[in-house]
């Protein structure tokens, strides 16, 4: 089972923007005010650097999975321990976006607080993806990309009329500390290029692979930064009070006063793309776990993981702020180590005759 270049590119362009435009623009605006786009750009540059490192790792150990590289260089038990660590990381990192989307759907699409049952079918989808593995997810990404892209086009088209670039000024005048603080808090929504590390060994060798992946990431990053700037241009000083920017930015379009809120179509399309994005950590967590324990059966870990998440959401579904604070306090340092430092260290592993590339790219 291989993943093609096209699937990876489309997955990046679906996954990266669809999670970063709900609460994140408000988090950036809270600390960085009119420089919110800059705080977002810093994190995306960090992700771009991670992507370059991961592409270098893939090139260095071409044809081998990350597990095989670790196993051959550091031994079987180290490889298993590292994979178990990543399984835990992916499992935990799946929680916050699920909480965020649950709140988003309940607040924007419902008049009163709906029953918790409303969101739970999501776990059926994530269970299905967890069971089927990364290939099914990547194939779904091929379809969802077009939905997400058309949604962003519609949102941009409807929002541009109410944007005033005046509100981006004064540029770069926000205290550096606050902009960096915004970037730090926003890190929770980043690190998606890491998935490439777990695709290693399964990627179909194709021409201009690295260029295509970097270009698709750059396109997705541009959409995010553009949306952050657009958000600031529409709301100015009150951006900090606007959560769920995506559904709010469009409603000032004159077209809506005549036709009605057809912009909700865009919201629903982005939500469809986000379903894939939210499922991805579950898939990777199950992947890592099965590798770590050395068994191929995915049913039990997939079921257990999704049930755990379901129970967490059912119990703590009204405590998004507490969950976010906990993540900001304890999870970000672990995330930096696992997402940015550890993969970079992989590049330092020596290529021996055992873990040398099986074939030239």
């Amino acid at each position, binding site marked *: 089972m291989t993943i093609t270049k096209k699937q990876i590119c489309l997955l990046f362009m679906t996954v990266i923007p669809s999670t970063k435009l709900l609460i994140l623009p408000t988090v950036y605006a809270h600390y960085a005010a009119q420089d919110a786009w800059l705080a977002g750009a810093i994190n995306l540059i960090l992700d771009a650097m991670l992507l370059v490192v991961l592409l270098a790792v893939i090139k260095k150990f071409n044809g081998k999975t990350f597990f095989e590289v670790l196993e051959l260089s550091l031994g079987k038990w180290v490889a298993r321990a590292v994979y178990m660590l990543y399984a835990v990381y992916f499992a935990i990192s799946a929680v916050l976006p699920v909480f965020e989307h649950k709140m988003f759907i309940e607040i924007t699409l419902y008049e009163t607080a709906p029953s918790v049952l409303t969101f739970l*079918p999501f776990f059926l989808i994530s269970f299905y993806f967890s069971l089927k593995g990364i290939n099914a997810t990547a194939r779904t990404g091929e379809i969802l990309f077009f939905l997400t892209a058309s949604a962003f086009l519609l949102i941009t088209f409807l929002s541009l009329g109410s944007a005033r670039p005046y509100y981006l000024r004064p540029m770069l005048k926000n205290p550096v500390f606050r902009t960096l603080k915004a970037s730090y808090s926003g890190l929770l929504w980043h690190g998606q290029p890491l998935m490439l590390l777990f695709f290693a060994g399964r990627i179909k060798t194709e021409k201009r692979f690295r260029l295509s992946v970097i270009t698709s990431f750059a396109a997705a990053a541009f959409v995010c930064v553009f949306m952050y700037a657009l958000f600031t241009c529409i709301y100015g000083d009150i951006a900090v009070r606007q959560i769920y920017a995506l559904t709010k930015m469009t409603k000032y379009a004159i077209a809506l006063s005549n036709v009605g809120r057809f912009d909700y179509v865009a919201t629903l399309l982005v939500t469809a793309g986000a379903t894939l994005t939210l499922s991805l950590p579950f898939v990777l967590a199950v992947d890592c776990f099965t590798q770590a324990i050395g068994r191929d059966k995915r049913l039990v870990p997939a079921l257990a993981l999704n049930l755990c998440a379901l129970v967490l959401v059912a119990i703590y579904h009204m405590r998004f702020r507490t969950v976010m604070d906990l993540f900001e306090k304890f999870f970000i340092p672990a995330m930096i180590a696992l997402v940015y430092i550890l993969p970079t260290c992989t590049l330092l592993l020596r290529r021996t005759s055992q873990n040398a590339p099986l074939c030239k790219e």
Partner: protein
Amino acid sequence: MRHFVKSKILLIIVAAVFVLYLSNDFSLLDIKETALIVALGIDKDGDEIEVTAQLAVPKSSDQAANTPGTTVSGKGQTVAQALENIGVRTGWYPKLSFCNVLVLGEGILHGNVMESIDFFIRTVKLQDTARLCAAEKKAKDVLTAASPLDELSAFSLSKILQKDGESSSTVTITSLREFSMGYYSKSAFSMMPLVKIIEEKSGESEGGAKGSDSPTASAKKASSSKEAPQNAQKKQIFDATATLLFSKGVPVCCLNKTQTMILQLSRRKVTEATVELKQTEFDGKSANVFLALRQNRGRLKLRIINGRPTLDLRLRVVAKIDDTDVTTTPSGLVSGYVVPNNILRDAERLISDAYREMFEMTRACDCDVFEIADKLYRTQNRYYAALKDVALQGTRLEIKVVAKSFK
């Protein structure tokens, strides 16, 4: 066999989940238990806040005729509490998604209005595109007014504040979002239209509204108007041409119709704006000229000259003579399109003087109507710390109005 059992069990589980899922009501609201609020009025009643909601009650088509809008009031220490009390009293769930107008009563305007409308900015139940306006007296009076233009006074009001406002310069358009953006800006300046109720007899209203009827119809109306005084009912229409200016959420001064118009000309594109030039020379005679202004392009730019803020106000308009009070010669009719230079200069002078007068008037009230402090912060940031305290009082206004003729 194993595969068969597995697939059947899976099918049963999926079916069970779907039955459970689809039999849920998803906490959706029953329309019969929902009050569709189309406008809200907020008044002060002693220490309490009184919220008046105008409701659109769904009715069958035969009932709909002659059914006035329903208004319900609730009181509480806060707006949210008052709103909740409306629901408690009526048994309806107050649905605010359709609320397009928010009227603030005179009592609310005595303090910081943000204290009253902050709830609406925080809540997701009400769209922040809802138009804001102030009532000359009680907001409740505006919502209970018997308007001849629509069954619900809120609808006739929203026609003035929304539909007309988008093209006309005589009404200030302010949504909840725009008001709060202004309030939280460095200038702390915001504004909203002031709604006055004008009483008129229903007969007057009909005559005015159907002025373009055929002569026969007019004649019939004239004969029937003799009976009108007996049946005449008091009808109320709204005037929203005045603009209330707020500094830090407190109303500090009021602009009249002309001032409202010229302020709109410098802030946004308008399709209808008019000025009246009195006793000016037209077609060789002294005349009152009604000049239409089109294609306005306003620009406000703050510069620092010799350490002093200078606000450059540039306005370009294209003028056309709409009407005069003198009869014109055939050549005079042509000059309706090509506006004589003397009239253009008169118009420029009139508008410039109005801007200057408005600037001095608002400055005296410490009201930053041209958002000088905000411009200083955003466009001249390096001077902001030094000049922020004297920005408004120390700014020099340079006005350049250019009126051109249709050719």
